[in-house]
């Protein structure tokens, strides 16, 4: 591989942390968090080169969506030329990473690890990965480097990660635990699978473990494990001919926080996917809109993710506040297809869903349904129905 001319060695730069941070401030970069981060990570007596690298890493991590990309590419070059001692401090910059920043920082760090070769500090990386309090993105990246260089060392870390906040690490830990009992007696396998069912958060992993348990005699209710909201009341149908219904404000959404459901039909979500089938509940119709309402109790007020899947256009309100609106018809469907963040109060909350069916006549466009669950960011189901 041709090598780009390497920037001056960072360790040779006789700078101090304050100078690095001051330089970044002069560049008007979003460094408030970066300053705190650099100070907390490094302390005032940190070598100057480390501070320079961390300052560049923070600039990368906090990158905005557009503009200034030449400067970011230069920062990535700076990070890519780092010395071993700078790697873990730079990984800490993931704590405040934007979507663009994740990629800027990881691309610079990946190049750094390539450049460091055998000098990658494996023990420091191991400690970083093992610390669940460190940024999940950084730990996942570091685990990938570790896995390719010291696979046994990386695998050993997984044993304590069954409830890890970094989902890829948790997933790998669950896979390892299941593999470890693959040849064990059935009672032990059953016990471990039951335990892993409660640990898993990725939907496909939950489904796979549940399928194994069912094959071995357990009556697993997957919809309960995934926490779908099951008890609903559905409205009459409103007009959606020509697609007018998505934008139309029908009476239920005029009072989205407390719609009048006196005449609405009770509907129970069915199947592993917790689907509310409006064709079954209201009758197979085309060019129509229906509303469905559910009550969900929370032990305490909090923000949470509302996750809905539907092949139809949908709008979701939580206590009258619109949190999701997607005017997409029959382009796919999946659990957790659309995700919105909502504020829930302690006690009873009102979930209102508007589900719009269009007039497509193809057989694959017949479904008029949705599924909804409320989760924390990891996918842990939240809330109970009264």
């Amino acid at each position, binding site marked *: 591989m041709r090598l780009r001319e390497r920037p001056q060695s960072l360790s040779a730069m006789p700078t101090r942390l304050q100078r690095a941070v001051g330089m970044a401030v002069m560049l008007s970069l979003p460094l408030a968090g970066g300053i705190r981060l650099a100070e907390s990570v490094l302390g005032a007596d940190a070598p100057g080169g480390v501070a320079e690298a961390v300052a560049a890493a923070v600039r990368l991590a906090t990158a905005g969506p557009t503009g200034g990309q030449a400067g970011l590419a230069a920062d990535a*070059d700076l990070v890519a030329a780092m010395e071993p001692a700078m790697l873990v401090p730079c990984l800490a910059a993931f704590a405040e990473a934007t*979507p663009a920043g994740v*990629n800027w920082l990881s691309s610079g760090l990946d*190049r750094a690890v390539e450049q460091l070769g055998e000098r990658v500090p494996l023990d420091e990386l191991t400690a970083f990965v093992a610390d669940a309090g460190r940024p999940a993105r950084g730990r996942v990246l570091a685990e990938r480097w570790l896995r390719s260089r010291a696979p046994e060392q990386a695998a050993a870390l997984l044993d304590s990660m069954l409830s890890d906040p970094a989902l890829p690490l948790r997933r790998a830990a669950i896979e390892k635990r299941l593999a470890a009992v693959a040849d064990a007696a059935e009672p032990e396998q059953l016990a471990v699978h039951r335990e892993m069912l409660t640990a898993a958060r990725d939907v496909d992993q939950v489904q796979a473990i549940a399928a194994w348990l069912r094959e071995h005699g357990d009556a697993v209710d997957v919809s309960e494990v995934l926490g779908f909201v099951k008890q609903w009341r559905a409205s009459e149908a409103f007009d959606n001919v020509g697609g007018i219904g998505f934008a139309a404000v029908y009476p239920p959404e005029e009072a989205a926080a407390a719609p009048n459901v006196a005449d609405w039909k009770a509907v129970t979500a069915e199947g592993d996917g917790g689907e509310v089938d409006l064709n079954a509940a209201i009758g197979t119709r085309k060019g129509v809109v229906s509303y469905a309402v559910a009550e969900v109790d929370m032990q305490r007020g909090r923000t949470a993710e509302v996750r809905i899947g539907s092949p139809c256009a949908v709008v979701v309100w939580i206590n009258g506040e619109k949190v999701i609106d997607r005017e*997409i018809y029959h*382009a796919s469907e999946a659990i957790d297809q659309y995700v919105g963040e909502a504020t829930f109060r302690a006690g009873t909350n009102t979930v209102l869903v508007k589900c719009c069916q269009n007039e497509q006549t193809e057989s694959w466009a017949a479904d008029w349904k949705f599924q909804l669950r409320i989760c924390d960011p990891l996918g842990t189901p939240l809330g109970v129905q009264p």
Partner: protein
Amino acid sequence: MSATTLLSGFFRRRWAATAAAGLLIGAVAPAVAGDWLGFHGNDGSGVAQTPIRRTWTADEGIAWKVDLPGRSVASPIVVGDLVVATASSGPKQDQLHIVAVDRETGELRWERIFQATGRTLCHPTSAVAACTPASDGERIVALYSSCDLFCVDLEGRLLWQRNLAVEHPRAGNDVGMGSSPRIIDDAVFVQIDCQGDAFGSAIDLATGDDRWSVTRAKIACWASPLEVDLEGQGTCVLMQNPRGLELRRVGDGTAVWLWEGDVGGIPMAATADGLIYAPTNGVAALDPTAESGRPQWQQPKLSCGISSPVVFGDAVASLNRGGVLVVADAADGSVRKQVRLAGTFWSSPIVVGDTIVAVNMEGTTFVVESSGDYAILAKNELPGSFPSTPAAADGSLYLQSETALWKTAAAE
């Protein structure tokens, strides 16, 4: 812009063109010798000159094979001494890979892994890595179904990125996005056609900033933009969706030609000798400088399925999903030959030297004469599913399955 609008008989299609629009001249800039820089070739024509070997198996006639780090239905590209492929991996397919291997040896030169910022759901037959990357010979741009666009240099150094679904939160399609970027005049052209935030943009290749961006119809489409030089208007980009075709000036995005009709949402049009060969009820040959929007000819037997047509010499060929290759006269659309291949085709035919090359999903590559009797010269089988259009450069074919990349050895 002064435009005229005419109804064109039973096609009921609207034509708009500038009065100043002159002749459509030779489609695109000449190809860089020995490279294959984007979907369907350097200029989208799907034509390479250097002949390839006609036979191979997994064990013979193969220069190298490499496994991909994930899943892909995109095509590889050939840039200098690199072959570049994309893939996605992870439970949510949100790890986006760009892989560069040595063109001669297949050895890994570098790999970059990015995190998707947009939607990564897609139909099982597609993949998050569905858009073929593009290159100007110095930089590589890779677009994914998540609407993430990355620009790296030939050493894998990230130069800029655009997280287009962050900028346009309703952009995306859970069937999967598949339109490939095209580089024209140092700008990257992307078509984000979907039911949500649909748009087309010209993005400066050097900076990653928008040169212009236009809102597009909220309808899904997987076809890729194509370069067309239109005299009087300069270089234009052709963008299509199921409702029609439009030409926009590359420089400022001004629309200079619009043709409304039922156009395929997946196959990309072709262009040669002043005509646009549009996948619409077979293929229609359109002259954007003509006063009438009526096609010069239309041949329903040139059914494209989801494969893009290819124009070569005085012929045009299409391939339907059922495996019937139809060759017609490019001047009048008259059918010269129908060749029944076999299998299901998701990839597009290309023309290499004096042969037409078509790869079915089952991994059989058909090598067919590109003139005369259009005889099938060889059927070469490789293991795996092959949804990707092959690349051809310097006498080798680069065949990509969903999980591996193969290079054929030099011609016998």
